[in-house]
């Protein structure tokens, strides 16, 4: 089956999921992102790579944070940006996804950044756009959030450059998390030898070990000697529907406190994709502590999204800007 993300030459055409992308392309994105990290520190925070191009953020599911980082990334590449919160407009009037997309195609957008509550929505849109339009998945259901996965491994690589010698633990709601799936694929593709998931059985998807992870159900053993702790967001609605008894019990069993973190390596870093639920999945003293790299993740997120857009929109390859 043809990988819909790659063109006939095996180059990136859309970014829909990390799964199935070759290591070469992941490294190309990460290396390109390195060249963009410095842009934000300049007086004039712009490069002209996407000048004259139009990037359209189509958010069928509301999000402020992710949409903003995509918007900043596109603007720093000199693109024109259109934001469309479809969740609050057309769809509530009965318009279908394809109607919405067709309208934006007719307005000559060059790149779509798409978020949707249904898994597979980004693939669906990518199948229906003309050849000259690239689709970036900004999160589809529980399936994938590839730029988040990429910015997370970018952050890991910055702090722990020897990816082939790492132990990484993901903690929390893997079942509902597109971030977890993208992180797992990114880490395993880049050769991280040991990826763990730590969660109660109710928050793990079926056959999760087939994704290449080791499963733990307790924090002490799961965190033992890990180099990186990736926390996952736990949404409040998980307390209903018999997945968990209470936020309090969850925090006591799977919350990241300094005491728990001490089971990891002393120089372990702590990550979180945001937005955090302080006191539910992570203790404030850890989130704001010396091992936390949560804010650098946000900064790198812009560089990584710039890299993806530059590669898709401008034929940008590694080491491209000077």
């Amino acid at each position, binding site marked *: *089956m043809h990988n*819909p993300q790659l063109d006939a030459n095996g180059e990136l055409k859309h970014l829909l999921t990390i*799964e199935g992308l070759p290591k070469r392309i992941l490294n190309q994105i990460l290396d390109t992102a390195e060249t963009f990290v410095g842009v934000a520190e300049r007086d004039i925070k712009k490069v002209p790579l996407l000048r004259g191009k139009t990037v359209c953020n189509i958010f069928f599911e509301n999000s402020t944070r992710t949409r903003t980082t995509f918007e900043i990334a596109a603007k720093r590449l000199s693109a024109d940006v259109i934001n469309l919160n479809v969740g609050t407009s057309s769809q509530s009037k009965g318009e*279908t*996804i*394809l109607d919405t997309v067709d309208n934006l195609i007719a307005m000559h957008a060059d790149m779509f950044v798409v978020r*949707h509550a*249904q*898994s*597979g*929505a980004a*693939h*669906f849109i990518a199948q229906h756009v003309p050849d000259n339009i690239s689709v970036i998945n900004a999160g*589809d*259901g*529980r*399936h*994938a959030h590839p730029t988040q996965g990429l910015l997370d491994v970018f952050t890991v690589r910055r702090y722990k450059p020897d990816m082939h010698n790492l132990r990484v633990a993901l903690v929390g709601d893997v079942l509902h998390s*597109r971030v977890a*799936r993208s992180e797992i694929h990114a880490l395993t593709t880049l050769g991280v030898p040991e990826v763990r998931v730590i969660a109660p059985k109710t928050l793990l*998807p*079926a*056959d*999760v070990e*087939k*994704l290449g992870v080791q499963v733990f159900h307790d924090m002490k053993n799961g965190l033992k000697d890990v180099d990186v702790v990736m926390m996952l967001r736990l949404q409040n609605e998980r307390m209903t529907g018999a997945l968990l008894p209470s936020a309090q019990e969850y925090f006591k069993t799977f919350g990241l406190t300094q005491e728990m973190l001490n089971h990891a390596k002393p120089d372990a870093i702590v990550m979180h994709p945001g937005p955090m639920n302080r006191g539910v999945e992570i203790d404030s003293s850890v989130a704001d502590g010396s091992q936390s790299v949560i804010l650098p993740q946000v900064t790198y997120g812009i560089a990584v999204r710039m890299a993806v857009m530059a590669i898709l929109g401008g034929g940008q390859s590694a080491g491209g800007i000077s």
Partner: protein
Amino acid sequence: MKIHIKNGHVIDPRNNLDAKQDVFIAAGKVAGIGSAPDGFVANQTIDAAGLIVSPGFVDLSARLREPGSDYKATLKTELQAAIAGGVTSLACPPDTTPVLDEPGLVEMLKHRAKLLNLAHVYPLGALTRRLEGKLLTEMNALSNAGCVGFSQADNAMTDTLVLWRAFEYAATFGYTIFLRAEDYYLAQNGVAHDGEIASRLGLKGIPAAAESLAIASILRIAQQTNTRIHLCRISSAEGVELIRAAKKNGVQVSADVSTQHCHLTEMDIGYFNAHANLKPPLRSTRDKSALCQGLKDGTIDAICSDHTPVNDDAKLLPFAEAEPGASGLELLLPLALKWAADNKASMADAIAKITSHPAQILNIAAGDLSVNANADIAIFSPEAEWKVQASQLKSQGKNTPYLGQSMLGQVQYTLLNGQLTFQNNQLESQ
């Protein structure tokens, strides 16, 4: 009208016939096999050299979308699809709009089908009013109107007391209950088999246990109430195992599998192909093998198309939002033959699964070529290869996961009540 079908190879599983024989038809009935009745002079001769002459196929589940959903399909388009696929008798589930829970609706459907005179339509009545699982329907009145059994279609029964009483009431009059076994809660909002693929794709899973738990309850109640039960669209290895054991214990149970589930697996979802969004979900390779084996050893009695035409717009959506179901009447024969070829079963075994066995389950006079039986006949080439293309399908529903695939086995002629209704991809004008 007298028809002589000559030079064909007759396969009639109920009569254990698998030989080159001529078939003679008079007054809408089979008048003779092998030798012509005295004084037989044919008005029409069909040369079936190189072709198989079989009883017309009997499909245990074909949605015709009437009444209520003619933007998806109409009785006419779907019955034309039926005869193009050699299907001359079909059962339709009661999940129409409105639901088939009133005798008048059933009479209307039977009447409209009869006017079209393309295939025999056997409605399954709703087991409970509006399929809500709360109040019983007037089963006797529905039976008199033409229902051959009672079904909940895809609506699960959550109230076991209602289920128990529905069984008792149906058993009082000897009606068969057709149920697709699925635990409501375990299946709720699920769209794919709960396994590795669903986990990778981030789709909400339906565990195989959703089926096996429901089967276990149904079998237990059927045994206690001495009810005749037909389990529709089995999808899991666990389900096959439970039915096998129940049959050994003398429970009055039969079962079918769809043409999708005996060939496809969760892997066929690929990159979110909405045509692979089916009820029940496509399961693992191990499940598929168990279904094929169950067909072979007789645990599963029949193969059905589970024909469910869906309009394009309802499929042009992200996977989980797309309406489930596949169009299948025209693929019943080639996919039944493929089951036999893939599993070292005979062609006669495949034919039995789509003729005599389903006819017996529906308790209708169909599915065989005995002398004096209705001359409902399918004549097909087992070697003809054709490609599934939306533009070529007669059904209004172009939704099938087999689009673009090659099929082996094509119907050349279909006869209903001794009249040629379909010939070489061209419908005879009515």
